[in-house]
């Protein structure tokens, strides 16, 4: 029996070839998830295609892991976390627009999110950007900031 402590949305699994799902007494939705395990789709993609919410998909994956039906294909840290270079570029763009206060704003928002530049999860990027935007009072600067960082953020999202 394998215990899966945390199911992350970007994790990729495939079916354990040494086990047979027939013996695991699976429910209908669990079978549906098993049928999607191709070693390429992420947990999130499977959840979306089956219209399952985070809690539902997490429970199913935990049950499948407990039945030893899963093999982790990819848990790539490199693609999971934002590189330091991103924060440097962001800080630079913000400083050009807002001046020296930019660094303080950046650190404040990271603190608000209980995050650090090191080990910042990529999937938190949209929320991080939104919080940064909300810290800019001037609406014209808000628009300008979003326009400037759009291509940078996009390259880390897609």
């Amino acid at each position: 029996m394998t215990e899966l402590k945390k199911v992350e949305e970007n994790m990729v699994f495939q079916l354990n070839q040494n086990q047979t799902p027939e013996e695991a007494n699976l429910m209908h939705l669990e079978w549906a998830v098993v049928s999607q395990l191709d070693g390429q789709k992420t947990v999130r993609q499977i959840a979306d295609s089956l219209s399952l919410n985070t809690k539902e998909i997490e429970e199913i994956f935990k049950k499948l892991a407990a039945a030893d039906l899963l093999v982790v294909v990819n848990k790539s840290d490199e693609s999971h976390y934002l590189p330091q270079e991103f924060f440097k570029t962001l800080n630079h763009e913000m400083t050009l627009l807002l001046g020296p206060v930019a660094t303080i704003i950046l650190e404040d928002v990271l603190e608000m999110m209980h995050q650090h530049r090191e080990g910042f999860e990529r999937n938190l990027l949209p929320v991080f950007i939104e919080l940064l935007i909300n810290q800019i009072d001037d609406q014209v600067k808000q628009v300008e900031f979003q326009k400037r960082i759009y291509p940078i953020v996009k390259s880390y999202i897609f």
Partner: protein
Amino acid sequence: MIISEFLKDLTRIEGIQAIAIYRSDNSPLDIWTDSKFNKQILEQVSVHYFQIFSVLESSLRDFHETVITYGKGKIFSRVFPDSLLIIITHPNVEISLIRFIINVKMTELLNSRQFQKILKKVPKKKMQFLDNKYLDEQEIKYLKSVKT
């Protein structure tokens, strides 16, 4: 056409099911859906959103955006001076990402010659679509109370 040109990044997000832009008379300017999505749902949804934003406008409330979560996902909508944008997504899609893309890309779309050309063909009228035929007694009562 305008969605795939200006809002292409939105269509690339996993879990976006439908994007629709309506002009202020509730006729569709452009609709994009993933292959499994039933387009007729959008028609029904858009009528309600015109109603919602009209009520908000009637009550002088400065709301331009709504996000509603339902069993199978989320409905994001934002009203612009001459149009309404509706996006239907799976539950896991991050609304802040949608908002960020829209903040940048809708401005480009709205200022584009292509969009301005489409709008020129539409008679300019204020967004006020509260058609009594869609309202039940409770809604009529509520609107009366808002106006007084």
